[in-house]
C-alpha cells in the first residue's frame, strides 16, 4: 500500500529505499505494542490498514512489493528468500482468488481444502479468513466458536506458526496443506519471511493479542511431537475458550447468586473430612489455572543447550552478556520461525533455530518493550557494524552478506541469519567495549570470534570474501540507521576497487601490532560514527549541538560527517543514477568548492571561528553551499568517505582522487582513525599524500597557525582543519603534486597516527556519546551537559601535541573515553552511584552499554543485585523468562513496569560487571602482555 503506482516515475532505488524504510517503521510499530499498548492500539495507522488481509489488495501489494525489493540492490544476494516472496505473492494471489470463489460456495471449497485436514471447519475458517475482512471473520469466529475455536486450534502442522499467522497467511498455508509436510513448512517459512511488516498479522492488534496468547499457550519447550503439542494445546485452548465464553456470557454466570449467602460456624464431621482433603486446592486450580507452561527449569535447560552450542560455557560476565544475547536473539529470531529454508544448513549450528524446530513460537516483537528498543534494533545494527569491523580485524572478516542483506530487507521476519549475526554482534559489542578501553584482553572474546568466524566461513563458503567485505563496509553506513542509504550502498560497494582497498587495509593492520590498537580504535570510531550518523539522521539540530561542543576543527569534522550522513542518501541516489557521473559531479563539486574555498583559507577559518560561537554547522554548510552553489550532497559525500570505514567503498568508486581529497577534507579524523596513510592502498596513498602534502605544505600550515597557533608541522598536518582539507581538495583538483610535501606528510602521518587516532577517537566517542543520549532518550540536545563533552577539549590539546603517544597513554586516553562513555566508576557500585530522579517517570538519559543498545540509568536494585547474584544459568533463565512474561500484552501495567525495570536493572548489572571484569583484565594485561594477545588474535585468524 505504501507504494502505489504513481511512484513509478521515481527511481526504483528510491522506491525500494522507501519501502525498506516503511518496513522498518512497521517493525518499530510492531515492537511498540507494549507498555503504551493502549495508546498504540489506537494508532490510526495500525488500526485499519492492518485489520485484515483484504483479498486482492494485499496480494497486489505483495506483488508490487517484490520487485522493489528485488531491484533494491540486493541482487547479488537475492537468494531463496526473495524467491520465496515472489512465490508468496503468487500464492497469495491464487489463494485469494480461490477464496473469493469460496466465499460464495464455502462448502465446496472447504471440502476440497479439507481433504487433507482433520476438520472441515478449520479449513473453512481459514479460507474465509483470507478473503473476508474483519467483521466477517468475527462472525465466522463466533459461529464456529462453539465447535472449535479456530484461533486456538490451528492445524497441527501449523502449530509452529501459531494461530494468527496461520490465519492471516492462511491463503498459502491452506494451499500448501495439501502438499507434503516439508513443502508446507517451506512455503510457510517463506511466507513468514516475506510478509511485509505492515501486513504482518502481528501488526493487527487483535491478531497480535491472539498471537501472543496463543504463543504463551503453545510454549511447550520440550515437546517436539506435534501430536502431543496439539493435544495439549487443544485442551488448553479448549479450556480457555470455555472460560472465555463463560466470561462473555458471564453475566448470567455472575448473576448467579453469590455462594456467600450461606455460612457455617462449625463443620459437621463428615463435612470436615471432606473439607480437610483439599477443597481450596481444587478450587483455586481452575481459576488461576496454568497460564504458564514454561518453567524456569525448562528455560534453563534450553538456554544451556543454546549456549553450549554456541560454545559459551564460561561463567564470567562476558559470557553471560553474550548468552543473554543469545537468548534475546532466539526470542527475536523465533519470529522468523519458518525461514529455515535459506539457512537450513546452518540450523544445526546455531542455537536459535532450536526454537524453530521445537515449534516454540515467541511473539514477534522483542520483549523488552520500551521503544528504546526500537533503537535496539538500530543499535544492534550498529553493533553489527562494529562486529563487522571486529571480525575483520582479527580474521580479515568473513561475513555473510546474505545475512546482512536479509537483515535490512526484512528485518522483522527474516531473522534466522540475524540470529547468527546478532549472535555475532554480541561479540563485537563486548569486543568493542574492550577495545575502547584499549585493553586487548578479550582473549575469550577473541576465541569466540574465532569460532564464530570459522563458523561463518563454513556457512558462507558460497560467498566471495571480497563481496562480503564490500558488503560489510557498505553495511556500516547502512546499519547506521539510514535504511535507504543502506540499500544503496551495497550497489556501490560492488566496485572492486573498494574491496581491494579494504583488504589492503586489513592486511596492513594485521601486520602491525601497534596498528592493532589503532585498528581497535578505528573500530570504535567506526561504531561511533555510525551512531553519530543515526543521530544525525534523526535531527540535524542535534548535530549542531554536538558539533558545538567539539573544538572548531573537530567540530567541523563532526559536522562534515553529520552532513554527509544526512545528505549521503541523496548522494547515493545520484551516484546510482548517474554512475560515473558521480565522479564528475564530485569533481565539479570540489571545483566549486575550491572556488569558494579559494576565496581564502581565512574564510574557512572564519567559518570555523563562527562555528565556535556555537553557530550551527548546518549554517556553515549553507554558507558554503550558497557560496559554492553546491548542494549538500557534495559536501556530504566527501565526508562520507571520510567516515572511511563505512564509506570507503564509495571513495574508491569515486576514485582515489576523491578519496584523497576526501581524506584530507575528511579531517584528520579519518587519517588518524584509519591511519589511512598506512592502511590505504599504497599507490593511492602515495598519490593522495603527495597531493595533499603539497597543498598542505602551503595551505595547511598557514591554516593551522591561524587557527590553533600551533607551529608544529606535524601538528598542523595532523590537525589540519577542514578548511585545509578543502583547500587541499581544491588543489588536488588542480592536480598539483608536490613530492616533497608528500614525503613529509607520509612520515608525519605514520608518526602521528597513534596520537591522532586517540584524539579522534575521543572526539568521536564524545560526540557519539552526547548524541547518543539524546537520541535514545529524550529529544534534548544536552550536549553541554553530557559527561562526555568536557573531556573533548582536554584531549584535543593532547592530540595537537606532536609526541607520539605510548600505548599506555593511549590506554589511558581510551580509558578516559570509556569512562566518559560509561559513567559508572570501576568498582562495586554503591547507592551513592545511583542518581535518583527528582520525580517519578522523569525523562531518562539512556547511556550506551556493552549490549549495543542504550540502558537506562542505574537504579538501586542494580546495586542490590550485586550482592545477590544467582548462579549464572539461573539468572539467564530468569531474564529469559521475563522476556516471555513481558510479551503477554494482558499483563497489567504494574507488572509490565516491574518486569521491564527488573530487566533493565539486570542488564545494568551485567553491563557493569562486564565493565569491571574488563578493567580487571586490563590490569592484568598491563602487567602481562596485552599486545601479544591481541596480535595473536589477529594473526590467528588469518581471515577469509
Amino acid at each position: 500500500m505504501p507504494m502505489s503506482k504513481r511512484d513509478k516515475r521515481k527511481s526504483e532505488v528510491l522506491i525500494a529505499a522507501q519501502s525498506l524504510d516503511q518496513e522498518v517503521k512497521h517493525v518499530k510499530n510492531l515492537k511498540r505494542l507494549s507498555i503504551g499498548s493502549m495508546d498504540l492500539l489506537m494508532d490510526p495507522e495500525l488500526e485499519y490498514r492492518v485489520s485484515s488481509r483484504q483479498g486482492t489488495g494485499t496480494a497486489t501489494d505483495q506483488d508490487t512489493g517484490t520487485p522493489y525489493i528485488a531491484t533494491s540492490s540486493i541482487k547479488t544476494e537475492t537468494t531463496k528468500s526473495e524467491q520465496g516472496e515472489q512465490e508468496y505473492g503468487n500464492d497469495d494471489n491464487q489463494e485469494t482468488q480461490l477464496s473469493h470463489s469460496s466465499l460464495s460456495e464455502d462448502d465446496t471449497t472447504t471440502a476440497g481444502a479439507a481433504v487433507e485436514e482433520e476438520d472441515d471447519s478449520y479449513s473453512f475458517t481459514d479460507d474465509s479468513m483470507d478473503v473476508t475482512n474483519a467483521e466477517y471473520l468475527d462472525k465466522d469466529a463466533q459461529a464456529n466458536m462453539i465447535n472449535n475455536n479456530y484461533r486456538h486450534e490451528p492445524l497441527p502442522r501449523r502449530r509452529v506458526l501459531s494461530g494468527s499467522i496461520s490465519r492471516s497467511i492462511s491463503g498459502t498455508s491452506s494451499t500448501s496443506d495439501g502438499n507434503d509436510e516439508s513443502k508446507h513448512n517451506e512455503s510457510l517459512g517463506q511466507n513468514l519471511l516475506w510478509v511485509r511488516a505492515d501486513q504482518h498479522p502481528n501488526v493487527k492488534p487483535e491478531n497480535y493479542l491472539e498471537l501472543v496468547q496463543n504463543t504463551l499457550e503453545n510454549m511447550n519447550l520440550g515437546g517436539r511431537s506435534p501430536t502431543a503439542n496439539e493435544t495439549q494445546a487443544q485442551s488448553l485452548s479448549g479450556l480457555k475458550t470455555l472460560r472465555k465464553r463463560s466470561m462473555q456470557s458471564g453475566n448470567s454466570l455472575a448473576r448467579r447468586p453469590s455462594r456467600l449467602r450461606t455460612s457455617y460456624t462449625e463443620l459437621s464431621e463428615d463435612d470436615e473430612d471432606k473439607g480437610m482433603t483439599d477443597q481450596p486446592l481444587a478450587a483455586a486450580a481452575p481459576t488461576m489455572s496454568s497460564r504458564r507452561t514454561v518453567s524456569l527449569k525448562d528455560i534453563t535447560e534450553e538456554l544451556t543447550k543454546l549456549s553450549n552450542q554456541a560454545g559459551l560455557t564460561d561463567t564470567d560476565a562476558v559470557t553471560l552478556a553474550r548468552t543473554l544475547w543469545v537468548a534475546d536473539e532466539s526470542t527475536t529470531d523465533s519470529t522468523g520461525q519458518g525461514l529455515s529454508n535459506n539457512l537450513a544448513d546452518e540450523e544445526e549450528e546455531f542455537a536459535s533455530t532450536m526454537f524453530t524446530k521445537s515449534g516454540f513460537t515467541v511473539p514477534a516483537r522483542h520483549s523488552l518493550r520500551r521503544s528504546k528498543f526500537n533503537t535496539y534494533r538500530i543499535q544492534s545494527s550498529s553493533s553489527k557494524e562494529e562486529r563487522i569491523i571486529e571480525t575483520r580485524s582479527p580474521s580479515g572478516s568473513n561475513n555473510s552478506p546474505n545475512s546482512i542483506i536479509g537483515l535490512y530487507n526484512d528485518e522483522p521476519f527474516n531473522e534466522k541469519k540475524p540470529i547468527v549475526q546478532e549472535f555475532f554482534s554480541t561479540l563485537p559489542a563486548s569486543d568493542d567495549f574492550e577495545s575502547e578501553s584499549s585493553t586487548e584482553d578479550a582473549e575469550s572474546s577473541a576465541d569466540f570470534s574465532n569460532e564464530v568466524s570459522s563458523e561463518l566461513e563454513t556457512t558462507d563458503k558460497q560467498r566471495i570474501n571480497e563481496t562480503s567485505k564490500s558488503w560489510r563496509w557498505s553495511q556500516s553506513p547502512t546499519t547506521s540507521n539510514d535504511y535507504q542509504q543502506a540499500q544503496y550502498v551495497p550497489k556501490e560497494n560492488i566496485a572492486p576497487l573498494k574491496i581491494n582497498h579494504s583488504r589492503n587495509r586489513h592486511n596492513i593492520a594485521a601486520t602491525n601490532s601497534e596498528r592493532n590498537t589503532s585498528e581497535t580504535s578505528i573500530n570504535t570510531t567506526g561504531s561511533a560514527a555510525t551512531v553519530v550518523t543515526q543521530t544525525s539522521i534523526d535531527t540535524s539540530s542535534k548535530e549542531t549541538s554536538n558539533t558545538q561542543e567539539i573544538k572548531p576543527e573537530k567540530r567541523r569534522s563532526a559536522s562534515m560527517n553529520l552532513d554527509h550522513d544526512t545528505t549521503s542518501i541523496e548522494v547515493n541516489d545520484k551516484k546510482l543514477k548517474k554512475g560515473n557521473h558521480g565522479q564528475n559531479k564530485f569533481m565539479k563539486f570540489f571545483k566549486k568548492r575550491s572556488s569558494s574555498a579559494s576565496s581564502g583559507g581565512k574564510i574557512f577559518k572564519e567559518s570555523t571561528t563562527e562555528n565556535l560561537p556555537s553557530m550551527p554547522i548546518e549554517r556553515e554548510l549553507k554558507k558554503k553551499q550558497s557560496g559554492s552553489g553546491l548542494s549538500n550532497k557534495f559536501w556530504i559525500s566527501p565526508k562520507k568517505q571520510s567516515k572511511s570505514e563505512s564509506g570507503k567503498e564509495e571513495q574508491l568508486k569515486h576514485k582515489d582522487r576523491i578519496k584523497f581529497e576526501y581524506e584530507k577534507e575528511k579531517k584528520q579524523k579519518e587519517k588518524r582513525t584509519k591511519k589511512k596513510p598506512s592502511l590505504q592502498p599504497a599507490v593511492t596513498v602515495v598519490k593522495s599524500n603527495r597531493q595533499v602534502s603539497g597543498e598542505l605544505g602551503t595551505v595547511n600550515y598557514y591554516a593551522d597557525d591561524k587557527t590553533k597557533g600551533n607551529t608544529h608541522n606535524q601538528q598542523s598536518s595532523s590537525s589540519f582543519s577542514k578548511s585545509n582539507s578543502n583547500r587541499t581538495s581544491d588543489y588536488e583538483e588542480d592536480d598539483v603534486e608536490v613530492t616533497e610535501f608528500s614525503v613529509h606528510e607520509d612520515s608525519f602521518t605514520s608518526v602521528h597516527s597513534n596520537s591522532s587516532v586517540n584524539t579522534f577517537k575521543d572526539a568521536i566517542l564524545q560526540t557519539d556519546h552526547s548524541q547518543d543520549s539524546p537520541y535514545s532518550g529524550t529529544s534534548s540536545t544536552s550536549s553541554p551537559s553530557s559527561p562526555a563533552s568536557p573531556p573533548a577539549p582536554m584531549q584535543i590539546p593532547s592530540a595537537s601535541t606532536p609526541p607520539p603517544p605510548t600505548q599506555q597513554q593511549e590506554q589511558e586516553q581510551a580509558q578516559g573515553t570509556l569512562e566518559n562513555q560509561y559513567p559508572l566508576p570501576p568498582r562495586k557500585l554503591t547507592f551513592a552511584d545511583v542518581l535518583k530522579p527528582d520525580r517519578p517517570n522523569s525523562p531518562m538519559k539512556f547511556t550506551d552499554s556493552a549490549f549495543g543498545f542504550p540502558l537506562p540509568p542505574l537504579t538501586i536494585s542494580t546495586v542490590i543485585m550485586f550482592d545477590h547474584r544467582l548462579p549464572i544459568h539461573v539468572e539467564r533463565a530468569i531474564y529469559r523468562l521475563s522476556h516471555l512474561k513481558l510479551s503477554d500484552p494482558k499483563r497489567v501495567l504494574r507488572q509490565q513496569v516491574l518486569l521491564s525495570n527488573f530487566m533493565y536493572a539486570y542488564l545494568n548489572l551485567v553491563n557493569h560487571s562486564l565493565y569491571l571484569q574488563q578493567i580487571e583484565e586490563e590490569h592484568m594485561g598491563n602487567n602481562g602482555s596485552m599486545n601479544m594477545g591481541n596480535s595473536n588474535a589477529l594473526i590467528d585468524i588469518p581471515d577469509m
Partner: protein
Amino acid sequence: MSQHGFDFKFSQCFGDKADIVVTEADIITASEFDHTGDYLATGDRGGRVVLFERNNTKHCEYKFLTEFQSHDAEFDYLKSLEIEEKINQIKWCRPTNQSHFLLSTNDKTIKLWKIYEKNIKLVSDNNLSEGNKDYHRRSAGNGSARAVLSLQTLKLPKLSLHDRIIAAAPKKIYSNAHTYHINSISLNSDQETFISSDDLRINLWNLDIPDESFNIVDIKPANMEELTEVITSAEFHPQQCNAFMYSSSKGTIKLCDMRQNALCDYRAKVFEEYLDPISHNFFTEITSSISDVKFSPDGRYIASRDYLTVKIWDINMDNKPLKTINIHEQLEERLNDTYENDAIFDKFEVAFSGDSSSVMTGSYNNNFMIYPNVVKTGDYQAPTGMDEIVLQADKTAFKSKRLSSLQQQSARNKEWGDEIDFKKSILHFSWHPRENSVAIAATNNLFIFSAL
C-alpha cells in the same frame, strides 16, 4: 479493643465448604467493614457485591444481608479493551437516613450505591376487588355489575405491607476518568469527596458530581517508554481532609497536601528507606514494590506492604520506618518460584486494627498474620506473649478452633515445609473497626475470625 486480647478464633465461614470447583466469578476480590463494623461488604470477580449484617453482638457473627450486581463486563470499543467486572475495591460511606452508601469500583468505573430497606406494599383492597365480590355476589343473585359502582362505594385502595427487602440502587456513576486501571479509591474524611487512583493518576471527585473530577496526581511520562513507576495504592488521611498519600512501585510512599498545589505530585513528603542491600534479594526491583498502604485510624502511622515485608512508618519520620516486619522468610529462598509462577506480583493488602496498634496482612497457604501491638502507642500493653499470630483461613480453622492454643497454631501454620500453595493467597481482608475481628477473603470463602 486491645484489652480483648488477640485470642483469635475462627468464627464463621461463608461460601461453599465442599470441595467443588471454584468458579472464577466467585473469587472474592474485596472485603470491607463499614465504620461501625455492623456491616461487611465483599466484592467478587463476577462484579457482585455481597453485604452482611451483624447478627449477634456477642459472638461476632454476620448474616447475609443482600447482594447486587455492581459492575458488568464491558467492552471498550474505542480502545478494543475488555473491561472486567471484577470489583477492585469497596468503600463505605457514612449512612444517612437509614440508608447505607458505598462506593465500588472495577478497573474503570466507580459507582455509588445506595443500600436501603425498602418496604414493598401491595394493594390489598380496591374498589374493583370489592366490586368483583359484589359482582359475584350479585351475579349469583340477579343484576348487573354496573350498578355496584355507585359513588358511595368508591374509596381509596388500601396498601398493605407485603414485604421488606434490602434494595441497592446505583446513585452515581463516576466513569470515563481513568485511562488505566483503578487500583484504589478512598473516601475523604469530610465525606464529600473521594479520590480514585489508577496506575498513573489520582483523581479527586465530589460525591455529588459524577461527571467531573480533578486530577491531583499525574505521573504519566510524556513518553510512555520512560515509564518506570506506577501508583499502586492511594488513601486519604483519616482525619485531615487535605492530606492523602499514595504508594508507588518503586517502594516509596508520598504524602501530599492538596492545599499546596492543584497538582500534588511535586512537593510531597516521601517516605523512603535507605535500603540495606543485605536484606534484599535478586528480585528487589519487584519485591520492593509497595502493594498496599494504609493510614492507621488515628492518622499517626502508615503501614505499607511490599512483597516480603510490612513497614510501619511514623507520619512524622520519613527517612526510615518505625518497624519492618518480615512477613514470610520462608519465601526468600523460593523467590525464583514465585517469580516463575507470577506470585511475586501478588498484591497483598495490609490492615490496621481499629485502635491503630496492630497490623495484619496476608500470605500464602491461606495464612494470614496478625501483629499485635506492633505500634507502640501510649497505652502500650504488655505483649500477649506473641508478636506474630499466624492463622489459617482454611478448613483447618474449624478444627483448630477447639484444638490447640493460638501459639501452637501459629507455630504450626508457620511451617510451610516445601509445599507452598501460591494459589491460596490471602490478599484481601478487613479489620473490624471496633473490635478484634477480621474478615478474611480466602479465594471464594469469607472467613470471620474474632477474638471476642
